[in-house]
């Protein structure tokens, strides 16, 4: 499928306003950029209610935003612990608020968005440590949080999906609770990868190769690119991981690693549903105002999550 017309127009607008494509942007500017993009989310009318809280993490309080679907009340519901994207440097509870709301409303699950520590102030594996702590906290406080502990899931988008996949690996190996599902949206799973979609969409497709290299340099400058905590696709075995929903975008540099992960999970015997969004770019799902098909993506993901519960899938 060709590039979606609205996605193409957004890329053209971004190209038109870019001042110096190769100028290094300090972390504060990258954070502000992503926050400005959040204005391209939809109107936030999704039927979900949010409250901000926090828990004691390994290095201080980790803020979280708890979303409950309309009419959810206090009853025990399935819950998705969500890690936002933003290159480990940018992104926060606000940048992904619209997407989390839509996921919550569409799935009928609780969503717990986690404001993990970011680089360069906090380097690898601080973000993953907080992510795992969030899963343990959600499991340990399931009753108080209104979570059905048999239906606790992990998820994220972009590098947040990489954190989710790495957390699922660690949880499998005893460093976290049993998980019912991993949701990976446009995941980054093999940081040192080249070729294929990484080359085809290296420039002009929302995250340039240079921009990703800057994020890597800020987060994990001295870590081997094949460390599975950074590149879950490089893990020795994917057997025994929770069922996966993997959503990729056709014109995304990180497309191939997401699809490779789906294939490896399937061959390891893990139930996988993989969906490629034709004509779409990285992060499209959070840009509903600029790319209307974003709302379809959240609706589809939510329906898949709901289906998973209705078919009785749960931690055994």
């Amino acid at each position: 499928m060709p590039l979606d017309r609205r996605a193409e127009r957004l890329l053209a607008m971004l190209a038109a306003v870019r001042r110096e494509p190769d100028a290094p942007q300090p972390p504060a500017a990258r954070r502000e950029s992503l926050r400005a993009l959040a204005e391209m989310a939809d109107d936030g009318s999704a039927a979900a209610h949010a409250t901000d809280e926090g828990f004691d993490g390994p290095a201080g309080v980790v803020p979280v935003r708890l979303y409950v679907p309309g009419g959810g009340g206090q009853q025990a519901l399935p819950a998705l612990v969500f890690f936002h994207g933003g290159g480990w440097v940018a992104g926060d509870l606000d940048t992904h608020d619209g997407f989390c709301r839509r996921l919550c409303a569409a799935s009928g699950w609780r969503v717990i968005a986690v404001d993990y520590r970011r680089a360069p102030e906090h380097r690898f594996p601080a973000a993953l440590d907080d992510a795992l702590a969030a899963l343990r906290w959600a499991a340990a406080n399931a009753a108080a949080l209104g979570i059905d502990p048999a239906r606790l899931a992990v998820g994220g988008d972009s590098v947040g999906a990489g954190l989710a996949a790495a957390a699922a690996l660690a949880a499998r190996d005893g460093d976290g609770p049993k998980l019912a599902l991993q949701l990976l949206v446009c995941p980054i799973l093999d940081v040192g990868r080249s070729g294929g979609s990484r080359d085809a969409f290296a420039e002009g497709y929302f995250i340039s190769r240079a921009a990703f290299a800057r994020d890597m340099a800020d987060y994990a400058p001295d870590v081997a690119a094949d460390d599975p905590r950074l590149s879950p696709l490089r893990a020795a075995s994917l057997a025994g991981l929770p069922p996966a929903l993997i959503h990729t975008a056709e014109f995304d540099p990180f497309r191939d690693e997401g699809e490779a992960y789906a294939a490896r999970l399937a061959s390891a015997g893990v139930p996988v549903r993989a969906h490629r969004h034709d004509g779409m770019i990285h992060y499209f799902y959070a840009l509903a105002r600029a790319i209307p098909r974003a709302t379809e993506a959240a609706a589809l993901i939510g329906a898949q999550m709901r289906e998973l519960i209705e078919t009785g899938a749960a931690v055994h």
Partner: protein
Amino acid sequence: MSERTDPVLGQITAIVEAMLVKRGGPLAVAADQNLSEAGLTSLDMVNLMLAIEDAFGIEIPQRRMTPANFRTIAAIEQLVSNVALAA
């Protein structure tokens, strides 16, 4: 409202001023004031393009998506009327 008030200009000004407030910029901006200097970032410019399209029900052709066309409120007004005329 006086008959000399241009509703298009007024609408563009309102959109721009709402964005500038979020950036801690000036509360009022003149039609010929440079918007970058007033505090709009490059991504704000993208949001501005989208907001202008929404507000006027137009689609800005790619060749007109230039920084010059979004430098000032007056330039945007010119752009809007050109695009509307061409439609």
